[in-house]
Every structure is written in structure tokens, then in C-alpha cells.
């Protein structure tokens, strides 16, 4: 699940309905049943165990003074199973002549059930009667009444009623755990989140079995994006009652766990809460039709399900079905006029679908309808930031934070602003970049030309100039990157995110991947997103970005031939229409990596079979809202199904061309950095740990079985290398390399072959294999450096420059590559480049600042920058006044002798 977006106030009521807490009078009845305990006590125990049917029957047996509480218990138990008809009926039967005031507890339960099935006016009438008819109505009645009034848009009245409940507590008249939890709920509804938190804590301490309080507490945490504490609360409930539906739904909201929802619906098929949560989950996974079914079911059970209506309205608005949107909005307004949460949900949906401008409009509308809807400010602020409107975004986040400091997302995002204040702002012709001082010194010299190259190349290619300047934020801290991107500190393996006008990146300093490829990839998103007004589906946007990696540099991009063969063999290739679910439904990094790869293959297929122009035409299709099949029809004159068939045939042909056998016992390579990092071949790595003799025998048997078993040749080669049987090792490794020369996993045949050459004392052969290695592999710093050193030594400056650049792409923060580049600059007489390199080296130097300063001063001198030369060398001489080389540079800098 991307981001929990829930109408928790609504959930709160649900939770309240479904909870079970029997007050202390449970012990008052003398009637003993079965185990010798009172029906109330036994009913409570059965409820706690999740035996709802038995609990309902047992509660019904309560009589005498316990009668009313027994009815309440039975109604709740029935409701927990989804039998709301019976839950209403049993309560109604108990209340004689609709004299609600005389049966406050039963009436309140009746009202809660009625509200949950969309009869809010009836519920309101019941609660109103109880509150008006009692001098001191029960706390629960007051809070449920206040909650309902707020839901119906009668905020002032709601506040007065809720205040009464809180006042009761302040007067020392609320003791029972259930009532304390209700006061907590009242505080929450009154935006006193701190008090609510404390009161939930008090309620659960007073009665650890108050599951309703625990769930409500979890809901409060979840509303504030505090997933860890929310999960803890739900888990505590499930530890006691594993069949507690609201807790199961809560867990699903925290972790997007479909199984929890399946279980919840198995227990209570009529749980509106579970149904609408399931619907949201299906929508995230692009299973719109199934989602619609769930929302229909939810609305059938509760026509006033605000969440269902707001999500459906959001989908209608998203797909520009204006009439449908208006109808749904009117329907929500009919019972909860101008509900800010309805509009907030729509804003959130638009934001999650990268339509930030629309999200901003809806967030503003939500705030207009209720200026005290603090979540609205967070939604507005976070979406403004994604549009690059930093100042206004921050101002709104601050309003949200001042009034709701518990909202983790708001406070996280504001903390990132504190980090950004320490960052430098750098600008090129088309880009504005925020980065740390360290990155500004070391990365910027290489980032700036790359960005402008990307702009020039890709805008010309796609005939589209995005709105600029494009804002890029490079974060040193992964958590800052995550918060800036999605508001929360953990977003898994992502290393860069594009929002259309804004790109967020993890600094290459904390990354093990090719940062230049990532930048290129993300900038391509800027183009495709802006070309389609951010309406590009993820699979296509990612597919094009990955495809453009390879177009940018021949060694960028992804060569996952083995994975492709494996996926084809296991029939795991997705239908083109399901490609988005490859991303949203990925269970692990390998799945996610393959989703990128298959999306890339589709783009490759389009360009190869239909031409690049068709790709651009296809992108343009997404600028307007229409049926997916129509897009394929218009561009390719094919139905989606026909297009997919053609793609599958093309894939089959490609698999045949690769012509490699993939054994079922080998696991897929696992890549870091969202596919941009090293892909580890764990089978080959483990080969080093195996027993040599048995592994050799096994791999030989595999090769015997199939000569095209790439992994068997590779692993056998590794074992033989370990045994120093270099000739045999080379045979198998060369066989593997010839079989799949584009293999980029680690270790690869070329890598091991280079190691063999090194061991054999054959540096030329070693370099030859490293060159082979780097044709496809982009993550190897050391190999690139070795090749660059060799090229520089032999005077092949073009080649030296190429490999130096390759090393910088992997790690620009290591001094070795800059020392080499400075040497290169000196040798080729590029004084300006020398200055750049010595400037970077100065930042990287920790042991010898005097030498670094003097080198830089010399470079300045050679570049005719006499003042800079003098300044730099004065710093050096301040530390080492007698350092002769520096003294000479000083004298040259003042005499103007820069030759």
C-alpha cells in the first residue's frame, strides 16, 4: 500500500461498534450457567476468543439487572459476524415503545448499528432522545452522538456534546475503561490528539482486554502515519482475539496485507470497513473492476460509506467522468455536506497518481470547506512541494504541524526542510539543484554537464521541452530522500523519484549504483510525465526510462537475459495490460527488477517492430483520458490482446536467440538500487562455499545434461579457478562468456577470467578481460580505474578519458579516480579540467591538505587564475611555511608567471 489514506473518524465509529467491553456489573447477576459463571461474563470471554455466535447466544441468556447489557453484548456479537439485521432487531425488541431514553445503553448500541448501515438520521434521532431525556447520559452516548453530529456536518453542536463528555472526565466522573476510551475518542474528534493518546493509554492500562480502545488507538496512530505504533496496537488485539475484524483490517491498512482482509471478510462478510479497504488495495493494484465490486458491496451495506464514495468519486474525477463525480459528490453532500475528508481523500488519490496540480486544488477545496481540517494542510503542502512550490508548501505544512503535531508525515517533511536549509543551491541552464556542500563540491562538476546533455539529447529526440527549471533534490540521507518523496522514512529500494517537475535522488555518496544512469533515467521521466500531464502509467514511463538508459550509453541499461529466459520458461511474463501490477504487486526486489525489465522490453519491442515515432505517438495517447484498448488501437491498429500476442512472439524469438539453458535450481540474480545497482549471482557466490568435489561433479552432470547451461559452466569455472586448474577453468568460463556475453551479474565469466590472468601474471590478458567485462557492466570502479591507468601510461588519452569517466560514474567520491583525471588533464594540457580535478581532490583530501592546496594552486596558475592560485597556496603555506614547492607557486602567482 502506498500510503495509508483512511477516514479514521469513520473507522473509529466502526471500531466502537465492533468492540466489546462489559462493565463491572457483569458480576452482579446471580444466574449461573454452564461453567458456573454469569452469562455476561461468559459472553465476554467468548467475545474475547472471537466466538461471536456463541457469545451472542450467551449474552441473550442474561437477565434481570444484566438484561440490558446482555442485549448490548448480543447485538455487538451479531454485528461482529456481519448480522446487522439481527443486531438491530434484538436491540429494537428490547426497547419498549421506542422509549430510547429509558434504555440508554441499548439505544446507543442500536444507534451505532444503524449508523453503520447508513441510517444516520434514525441513529441521530435515537441518540438525541437519549441525550435529551437523561440528566447524565452515558459517556458513550454523548460521544457517539457528537461523532455522528460531526459526520453530518453539524460541527458546533458536535463540539458542545463532545465537550460535555470531556468535562465529565475532567470532573472525575469517568472511571470505566470503556468510557475512558470514549472520552479519548471525543478528544480525538476535538483535535486534542495529545489528550486522546493519553486517554487511550489509560483505558488500555485499566483494562488490557479493552480491544475497542486498542483498535481506536491504532486508528489514531494510523491517521498520524505512525505505522509502527498502529501495528503494535492492532497486533495486541489480535494476540487476544485473532478474529477481531477491525484489527485485521487495521493490519491490512498498515502493511497492505491482502490475507488479513480475506480473513476479515471470512469472519464478517458484511464488514464495510474490510470491503472498502479491500477496494482501495485492489485499486492500488490496478484491479479497477474488482475494486468496483467491493465498493458496490460496501455501499449496498452502508449507502453512507463516505470512504467508498470518496474513493469512487476520486476515480471518476481521475478519469474525467465529471457527471459521475458530481453525482457521487451530491450523494455524499446529502448526508455529510462539504465533508473535508471526502475532498481530502480525492486530493490524496490525485497526489498518489502523480496529478499534483489537481491534488492541490482538491486540498484547497477541503480546507475551504473546513479550515480546521489539518490533514488538508499536509496534503496541500506535500503536493505543492512536488510541484516545486516549496515556499507555499512549507507554509501549509507548518499550519498542519502547529495544529496537529502528532502527524508524523507533516513533521517528517518539515524536518527535511531543515536539512535543505543547510544545502547549496546550484543552477544550470535548465536545472535547479539542491545538494549538500559535499555534493556541491564533488558531484556538481560532473552532474551539471550530464544534466544539460540529457536535456539537449532527450528534448530533441522527443520533440518536447518540459517546463523548467527542473528542480532536483539530492539527499545525503536516505530517510530524508524517502520523506521528501513520500512523506515517510522508508520506501524500500528506490533511489530516485520523479514527480514531473521535481526529481528527488539519493546522493551517489550513499549509493552503490551508477548515479549517471539514474539521473538520465529520472530526467526521462520528466519528459514522459510532462508530455502526458503526469497521466503516464508507471509501466510505460519506467519502460521508456530504462530503454533510454541503453540509448544514453551502450553499457547502461539492463541485460537480464537469464531472467528473461527463466521468466519465459516459468511462464511468468505478464500480459501487457497487467504490467502496472508488476510494480505494485512486487513481493521482492527480484519481482520489482523484473517489472522494470519487462516494461523496457515492451518499449524495445515497440521501437524495433513499429519504430520510434510510434512510441512517441503512443506516449501522446496518454495526454488524454481514454480507454487503454483505444490507445493501442489508434497507434498500432491492434487490440490490446493482439498487441500482447505480438509481444509474446517477439519475446519467444528473443529467448530463442539468447539460447541459454536456465536450471531450476539456480535463483535469479538480485540487484540493488532498484535495478541500477550490482546484480549479485548468489548461486555463483555460494559456489565458493561449496565442497569442491561434489560441486564439480554436480556441475559437470548438469553440463552433460545440457551444454547450454550457462550457470553450470560459470560455477564450474569458479571452482576450477579456486583449485588453480586455470586451463580447465578458462575453458568453462570462456564457454559461458561466449554463450552470454552480455551477462552483467556478479561474478561474471569475464571477471573471473581477468582474475585468472592476474594470477597467471599476464596483465595484458587481465586488461583484455576487464575490457570485456566493462562492455556491459557499469558498476565496477576498480576495473575502470585499472584500464584508465593503463591507457594513460600508454598514451592512449581518449581511452584513458573514457575509463576515467566510467569510474566516476560508479564513485565520484574516491580520490584515486580524480588523481588520475588530474594527471590526464596535466598530460593533455587541459588547464581548466586540471583545476576542476584539483578542486575536487582538495575536498576529498584528509591527510595532506598542504599538498592538495599546492596542487590546486599550481593548476590555477597554469589556468591563468593568479588570484586563486595565490589564495590557495597561502592556505598551504600557512600550515607549512617552508614548503619550497608552494613558495615557488606563491612567487609565480605574484609575479604573474603562470607559464
Amino acid at each position, binding site marked *: 500500500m502506498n500510503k495509508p489514506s483512511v477516514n479514521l473518524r469513520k473507522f473509529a465509529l466502526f471500531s466502537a461498534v465492533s468492540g466489546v467491553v462489559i462493565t463491572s456489573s457483569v458480576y452482579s447477576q446471580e444466574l449461573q450457567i454452564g461453567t458456573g459463571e454469569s452469562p455476561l461474563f461468559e459472553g465476554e470471554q467468548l467475545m474475547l476468543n472471537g466466538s461471536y455466535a456463541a457469545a451472542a447466544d450467551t449474552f441473550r441468556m442474561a437477565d434481570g439487572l444484566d438484561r440490558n447489557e446482555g442485549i448490548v453484548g448480543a447485538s455487538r456479537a451479531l454485528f461482529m459476524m456481519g448480522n446487522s439485521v439481527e443486531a438491530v432487531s434484538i436491540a429494537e425488541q428490547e426497547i419498549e415503545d421506542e422509549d430510547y431514553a429509558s434504555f440508554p445503553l441499548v439505544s446507543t448500541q442500536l444507534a451505532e448499528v444503524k449508523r453503520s448501515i447508513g441510517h444516520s438520521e434514525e441513529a441521530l434521532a435515537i441518540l438525541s432522545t437519549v441525550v435529551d431525556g437523561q440528566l447524565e447520559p452515558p459517556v458513550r452516548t454523548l460521544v457517539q452522538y457528537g461523532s455522528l453530529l460531526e459526520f453530518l456536518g453539524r460541527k458546533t453542536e458536535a463540539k458542545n456534546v463532545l465537550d460535555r463528555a470531556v468535562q465529565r472526565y475532567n470532573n472525575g466522573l469517568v472511571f470505566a475503561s470503556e468510557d475512558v476510551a470514549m472520552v479519548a475518542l471525543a478528544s480525538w474528534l476535538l483535535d486534542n490528539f495529545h489528550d486522546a493518546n493519553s486517554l487511550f493509554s489509560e483505558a488500555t492500562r485499566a483494562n488490557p482486554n479493552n480491544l475497542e480502545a486498542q483498535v481506536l488507538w491504532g486508528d489514531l496512530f494510523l491517521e498520524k502515519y505512525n505505522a509502527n505504533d498502529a501495528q503494535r496496537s492492532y497486533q495486541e488485539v489480535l494476540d487476544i482475539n485473532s478474529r477481531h475484524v477491525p484489527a485485521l483490517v487495521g493490519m491490512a491498512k498498515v502493511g497492505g496485507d491482502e490475507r488479513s482482509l480475506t480473513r476479515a471478510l471470512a469472519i464478517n462478510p458484511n464488514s464495510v470497513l474490510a470491503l472498502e479497504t479491500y477496494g482501495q488495495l485492489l485499486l492500488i493494484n490496478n484491479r479497477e473492476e474488482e475494486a468496483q465490486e467491493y465498493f458496490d458491496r460496501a455501499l449496498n451495506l452502508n449507502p453512507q460509506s463516505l470512504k467508498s464514495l470518496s474513493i469512487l468519486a476520486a476515480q471518476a474525477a481521475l478519469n474525467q467522468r465529471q457527471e459521475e463525480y458530481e453525482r457521487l459528490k451530491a450523494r455524499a453532500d446529502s448526508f455529510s455536506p462539504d465533508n473535508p475528508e471526502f475532498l481530502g481523500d480525492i486530493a490524496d488519490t490525485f497526489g498518489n497518481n502523480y496529478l499534483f496540480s489537481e491534488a492541490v486544488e482538491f486540498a484547497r477545496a477541503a480546507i475551504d470547506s473546513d479550515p480546521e481540517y489539518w490533514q488538508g494542510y499536509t496534503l496541500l503542502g506535500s503536493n505543492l512541494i512536488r510541484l516545486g512550490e516549496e515556499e507555499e508548501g512549507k507554509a501549509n505544512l507548518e499550519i498542519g504541524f502547529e495544529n496537529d503535531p502528532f502527524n508524523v508525515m507533516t513533521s517528517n517533511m518539515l524536518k527535511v526542510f531543515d536539512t535543505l536549509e543547510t544545502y547549496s543551491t546550484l543552477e544550470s541552464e535548465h536545472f535547479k539543484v539542491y545538494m549538500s556542500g559535499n555534493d556541491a563540491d564533488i558531484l556538481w562538476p560532473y552532474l551539471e554537464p550530464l544534466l544539460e546533455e540529457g536535456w539537449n539529447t532527450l528534448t530533441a529526440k522527443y520533440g518536447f521541452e518540459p517546463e523548467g527549471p527542473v528542480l532536483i533534490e539530492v539527499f545525503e540521507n536516505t530517510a530524508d530522500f524517502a520523506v521528501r518523496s513520500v512523506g515517510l522514512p522508508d520506501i524500500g529500494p528506490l533511489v530516485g523519484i520523479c514527480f514531473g517537475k521535481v526529481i528527488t535522488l539519493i546522493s551517489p555518496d550513499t549509493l552503490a549504483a551508477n548515479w549517471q544512469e539514474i539521473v538520465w533515467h529520472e530526467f526521462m521521466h520528466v519528459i514522459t510525465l510532462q508530455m502526458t500531464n503526469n497521466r503516464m502509467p508507471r509501466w510505460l514511463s519506467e519502460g521508456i526510462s530504462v530503454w533510454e538508459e541503453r540509448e544514453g550509453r551502450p553499457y547502461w541499461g539492463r541485460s537480464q537475459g537469464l531472467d528473461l529466459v527463466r521468466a519465459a520458461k516459468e511462464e511468468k511474463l505478464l500480459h501487457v495490460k497487467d504490467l502496472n501490477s508488476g510494480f505494485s504487486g512486487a513481493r521482492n526486489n527480484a519481482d520489482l527488477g523484473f517489472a522494470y525489465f519487462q516494461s523496457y522490453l515492451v518499449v524495445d519491442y515497440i521501437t524495433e517492430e513499429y519504430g520510434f515515432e510510434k512510441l512517441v505517438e503512443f506516449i501522446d495517447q496518454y495526454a488524454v483520458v481514454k480507454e487503454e484498448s483505444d490507445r493501442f488501437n489508434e497507434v498500432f491498429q491492434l487490440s490490446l490482446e493482439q498487441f500482447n500476442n505480438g509481444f509474446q512472439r517477439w519475446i519467444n524469438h528473443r529467448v530463442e536467440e539468447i539460447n541459454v539453458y536456465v536450471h531450476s535450481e539456480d535463483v535469479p540474480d538480485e540487484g540493488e538500487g532498484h535495478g541500477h545497482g550490482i546484480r549479485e549471482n548468489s548461486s555463483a557466490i555460494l559456489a565458493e562455499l561449496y565442497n569442491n568435489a561434489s560441486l564439480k561433479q554436480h556441475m559437470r552432470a548438469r553440463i552433460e545434461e545440457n551444454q547450454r547451461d550457462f550457470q553450470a559452466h560459470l560455477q564450474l569455472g569458479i571452482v576450477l579457478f579456486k583449485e588453480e586448474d586455470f586451463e580447465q577453468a578458462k575453458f568453462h568460463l570462456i564457454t559461458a562468456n561466449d554463450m552470454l556475453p552480455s551477462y552483467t551479474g556478479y561474478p561474471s565469466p569475464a571477471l573471473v577470467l581477468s582474475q585468472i590472468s592476474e594470477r597467471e601474471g599476464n596483465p595484458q590478458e587481465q586488461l583484455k578481460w576487464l575490457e570485456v567485462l566493462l562492455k556491459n557492466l557499469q558498476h565496477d570502479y576498480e576495473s575502470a580505474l585499472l584500464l584508465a591507468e593503463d591507457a594513460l601510461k600508454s598514451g592512449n588519452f581518449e581511452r584513458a578519458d573514457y575509463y576515467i569517466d566510467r569510474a566516476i560514474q560508479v564513485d565520484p567520491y574516491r580520490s584515486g579516480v580524480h588523481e588520475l583525471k588530474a594527471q590526464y588533464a596535466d598530460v593533455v594540457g587541459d588547464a581548466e579540467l586540471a583545476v576542476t580535478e584539483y578542486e575536487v581532490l582538495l575536498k576529498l583530501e*584528509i*591527510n*595532506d*591538505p*598542504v*599538498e592538495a592546496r599546492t596542487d590546486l594552486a599550481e593548476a590555477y596558475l597554469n589556468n591563468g587564475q593568479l588570484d586563486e592560485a*595565490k589564495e590557495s597556496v*597561502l592556505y598551504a*603555506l*600557512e*600550515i*607549512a*611555511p*617552508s*614548503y*619550497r614547492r*608552494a*613558495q*615557488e607557486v*606563491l*612567487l609565480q602567482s*605574484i609575479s604573474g608567471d603562470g607559464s
Partner: protein
Amino acid sequence: MNILKKKIEGFIPERLCIAVINNLLQILASFIFITIVNAQTSALEETADYFLDSPGTGKFAVIMAGPTVGEANQTQFRQWAFSLHDILARDYGYTSDSITLLYDKGKTDSPGEGRIDGACDRKGIEEELATLSSRVNTGDQITIYLIGHGSGAEEEAKFNIVGPDITGSEFAGMLDQFKDQDIVIVNTTSASYGFSTSLSGEGRVVISSTRSPSERYDPIFSRYFIEALDNRNGDRDKNNRVSMLEAFEYAKSNVEAWYEEQGRLASEHAGLDDNGDALFSLNPIVDAADGRLAEIAYIDSAVDEFSGLNPQARPLKFHMQELERDIFILRGRKQDFLESDYWQEMESLLIELAIVTGQFEELIRDSNDRLDTNLTNGQTNE
């Protein structure tokens, strides 16, 4: 001479000025230069009696490598101790007589046992220190390196040796016999902080690889401290010598970089104390409280730079040293100046030094050339 005096008076108080002038007179008389590299006026007073570093100063090193369990640790400690021994002998003019190596139980199966002078136990330490005490002269410098494990906190902090461990206060008691010598202690053990604080004292340089008792994992500081000495890697000011401050700075920076590269939170933060307050500065270059003694506490002995110079070169050499000293003094008072004034003054001193150095080198070169020519002529004539 008048010009010289005036310049010095511009920077240092009269009382000290007289002392310095007297020193200079002595220098001129004996052609022995005593380096007084002082960063601050007040610091000058504090450091005047310590680490005078004359060419005749005797330098002694005591390396104590305690016992350990586990082959990896044992190898590492042995490697550090032996490397340190070899570097001191190779690069800094120490001999096996001036280095005392107390290692574990006094023997090892590995090569290099010949370097070991005794066991790192209480008896070995007491005996070797007593022997050393009988050999040293007033003003000699003794540098003690502790390698191995430490434990405990504050006064209970111990250096793990063979047999009962030794506490900081016990060890401090053993060092009392070196009242007339300059002492440097480099404590690179785990949990070294408490032990090191006990050794703090006026005129002593104490380096600890950890800053608090909670830092109790084996530090890697020792590795980089030794690396700083190796090939004079730590020589920051390019005078071809390594001071304790330079070695400390080198090791500290590299330890920080190591932890950063490993992506780990640093479990050690080295500190240095040389003003006797037992408060360790983590950044003595910036923090003016410590560092002034460590800056002039060199590992090797000074070389007599005047011997062999011809009469024309001597005043130039003297002038170079005078300018260098003025630069150090100005640098030490940086905070008393406006930034622009400071750099203006610094620039003029540095330019003058560069010019004078050039003249000096030219003179030496010319005289060498003449010498070569004479020799060549002589050979030709023969």
C-alpha cells in the same frame, strides 16, 4: 639584530621576549638552533620548558603490547607493535637501545622475536622503566605506546597485561621517576579513556584512542597512528618531521573516514590532552585548549641545521628561521586580527620567507657548484 628584536617585540611580551633573545644569543654563539614553535603567546609560556627538541635531546620509545585472545587480534597487535618498532628504527633514528618492546609473555612463535625486550607484565614494565630511568638525561623525551586491550572506567580503568592488570594511577606512579624528562603517552587500547586521564600531567602529551568509558570496542586508531609515522605520512607542514599533533590528526581523520566508508557509527573518538587538565580535546587544531605541546613534540630528534653552512649562508638561514617563527606566532594569534589584516601580514611574511629561501638555496647551489668545479678541475689537472 635590532630589526630582529623589534619584530619579535611586536608579537610577544617583554619578559618572554628577553628569554627568547637570550636563547637566540645562545643559538648564535653555539650554532645550535632550538626550535620554539609556539602558536600562542600564552602557550609560549606554558611550553617554554618542555620538548625543547635540541639536536642533543635523547629520544626513547617504550612499546607495550598486552596479551590478547584470538588469533586475529594477536596477529594484529603483534603486527602493530613490530611495525612501530621497525618504523621508529628505520625512519626516526631510534636504535634497539632506545626502543623497548614489551610484548605479551615476552616471546612469540612468529618471526621477529628478536625485537622483544621482555614480557608485558608488571615485573617487566617496572624493570624496564627503572632501567630506562637510569639511562635518561634531563630533557630527554620518552614516548610510551600502549597497544592491546583496556577495561573499566575512571580510576579503575586498566591496561590489560600479563598477570594482574595495571590501573592508570599505578602506571602514573611508575612514571613519576621521569620528572626531568618529557613524556608522551599514546594509549591505543580499548576503553583507554579512563586510564589515560590518570596519566595527564603538566608538560605531558597524552593521546587516547577513545574519549569516554563507553567506547570499549577495540579501536583501529593504532593502525592509522602507525601509518602516520610510516614514511612520514603525517607530515602536514612539510618540514620532513612528524609531530605528535600531526600524527594524532592524521590518525583521527583516517579513523573517521574508515567508519564512514564502512557505513558504521564510529565507536571510537580519539582525544589529546597536553595542558595537564585531563580533559581531552577531540580537535586540538581548532580547540586551542590542547595541542601546543603536541605540536612541538616530535618523534625524531632535531637536526643541527647550521653545521656545515658557510658564513654567507648562515645569516640567511637564521633569517629564514626567524621568519618562520614569526609566521607561527602570527598564526597562533589569528583570532586577534581582522581576517584581511591577518592575511595581509601573513602574505608579506610568506613572500619574504620564499624570497629568502630562494636566495639561500641559490647560495648553497652556487657554493656546491664551485665545489664541484674545483673538484672537477682538480681531477682534470691530475
